């Protein structure tokens, strides 16, 4: 097969696998809007990377982490409800990012590629980056699995039982920022949350334990990537949106299976 397709397949598989545990936690802790906000903020990172001519992925990771930190700090105040706060930060960083990119871009950047993803132009370096993130996230999730799950079930109970709740919560956001930074290549800023939550939600109906849900979610994520790439290859549809559309298809299918199996 053609080289670029191999790279795209590897990148897609890596991102689908790394999105599975994080996607499950996003679904369990109702962090979907949070993920959106981080993704939109990454556009600011892209703008700064143009401005300062630094590595784009590094800039995205840093900007995601900054926004995650700001959100954690702001969520302890009680003047603004959390969803309003997220909405304000999410859309103002998106707007600011779009402005900055268009002002400082000298014509070498196609914004749509960042908005809807550009998996077919994956380079070897991208794949290496994705594999590194996959390794880091898998290791951390495996090591802190029990703590992550404990704060998901009930933070107060976890804290009384000696779980370092704040650190574990920050760890989750840190991993989320990493995943978003590498997933932008595959599905783009606008569709990242979809790649996180749709396979996980679909896996819910097919699994009996949290661990099962992560693995089935990973599998469904990979299937969506392959189906999306195939559609892009044969029918020339945009790859990122095709991947997300395939994931939605799988979600519907799992709903039907659930319905007719009980």
């Amino acid at each position, binding site marked *: 097969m053609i080289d670029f397709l191999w790279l795209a397949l590897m990148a897609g598989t890596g991102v689908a696998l790394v999105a599975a545990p994080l996607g499950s936690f996003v*679904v*369990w*802790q*109702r962090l979907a809007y949070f993920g959106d906000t981080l993704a939109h903020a990454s556009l600011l990172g892209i703008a700064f990377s143009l401005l300062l001519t630094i590595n784009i992925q590094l800039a995205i990771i840093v900007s995601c982490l900054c926004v995650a930190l700001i959100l954690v700090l702001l969520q302890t105040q009680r003047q603004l409800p959390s969803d309003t706060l997220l909405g304000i930060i999410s859309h103002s960083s998106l707007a600011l990012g779009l402005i900055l990119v268009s002002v400082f871009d000298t014509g070498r950047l196609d914004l749509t590629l960042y908005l809807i993803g550009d998996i077919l132009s994956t380079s070897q370096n991208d794949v290496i980056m994705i594999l590194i993130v996959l390794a880091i996230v898998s290791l951390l999730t495996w090591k802190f699995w*029990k*703590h992550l*799950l*404990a704060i*998901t*079930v*009930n933070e*107060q*109970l*976890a*804290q*009384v*039982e*000696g*779980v370092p709740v704040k650190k574990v919560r920050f760890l989750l956001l840190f991993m989320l920022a990493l995943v978003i930074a590498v997933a932008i290549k595959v599905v783009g800023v606008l569709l990242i949350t979809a790649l996180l939550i749709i396979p996980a*939600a679909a896996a*819910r109906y097919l*699994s*009996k*334990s*949290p661990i*099962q*849900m992560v693995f089935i979610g990973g599998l469904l994520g990979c299937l969506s990537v392959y189906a999306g790439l195939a559609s892009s290859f044969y029918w020339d549809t945009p790859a990122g949106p095709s991947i997300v559309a395939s994931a939605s298809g799988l979600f519907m299918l799992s709903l039907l299976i659930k319905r007719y199996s009980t």
Partner: protein
Amino acid sequence: MKSNVLLQAAEVSLRDGDKVLLDTIDLSIKKREIVTIIGPNGAGKTTLLNLLLGLRKPSSGQVHRHNNCRIGYMPQKIQLNPLLPLNVEHFLSLVDTRSSTLKADINTALTRTGVADLINTDMTRLSGGEVQRVLLARALLRKPNLLVLDEPVQGVDLKGQDQLYKLISEIRDELGCGVLMVSHDLHLVMASTDNVICLNQHICCHGHPESVSNHPAYIELFGNSISHVAAYTHHHDHDHNLHGEVCEATFEEKE
């Protein structure tokens, strides 16, 4: 701090802006003692528990915990996301113990709280009373010497409440642990409590349940009427367990 005191609050206050949530609270829980905090809605009962548990910091005053005080905590309610597939056994295995016999311990704890047959049931399918018993089992897994229970009988019918309070005092006898719990009905906990603290931002009165129920501050807070209403009781020659099966009568009728 005396050696038999597990947990002690010394002049603890909490303010949120101008609002005083808790005003100079002094209390202590000793080994084998059951202390019940009662008070109307918004009296600061759960807030006080959170302070004692170290979940919040007081604005002034101090909370002392005995060095080997191991707390088993049962929160008021837990909201589980239906998208999280979690059965009872898995929920209990999240407890952070280094015990190598966790599986056996889980069975023991569930048997003790009377819900051993629910071990493979999904957490979201449990009834209110079953959830409380599973939460109590989780608190027991920590092998606590202090049980902290926030409204342990919430969402449980009257009969179940009685059984649950009985279970709690039995557990106290078996483990020799102290128990601190929150309730909003003095009369239900009367039989199984040693010390009552009547809370409404500050401690209105405290002491033995009988004396508190006659205390003017208590009557002012809850009204006099309650103590005159006799609960309707009739005699059963049999009893039902948690699953509705008929079994020998176990629970004593009150006058």
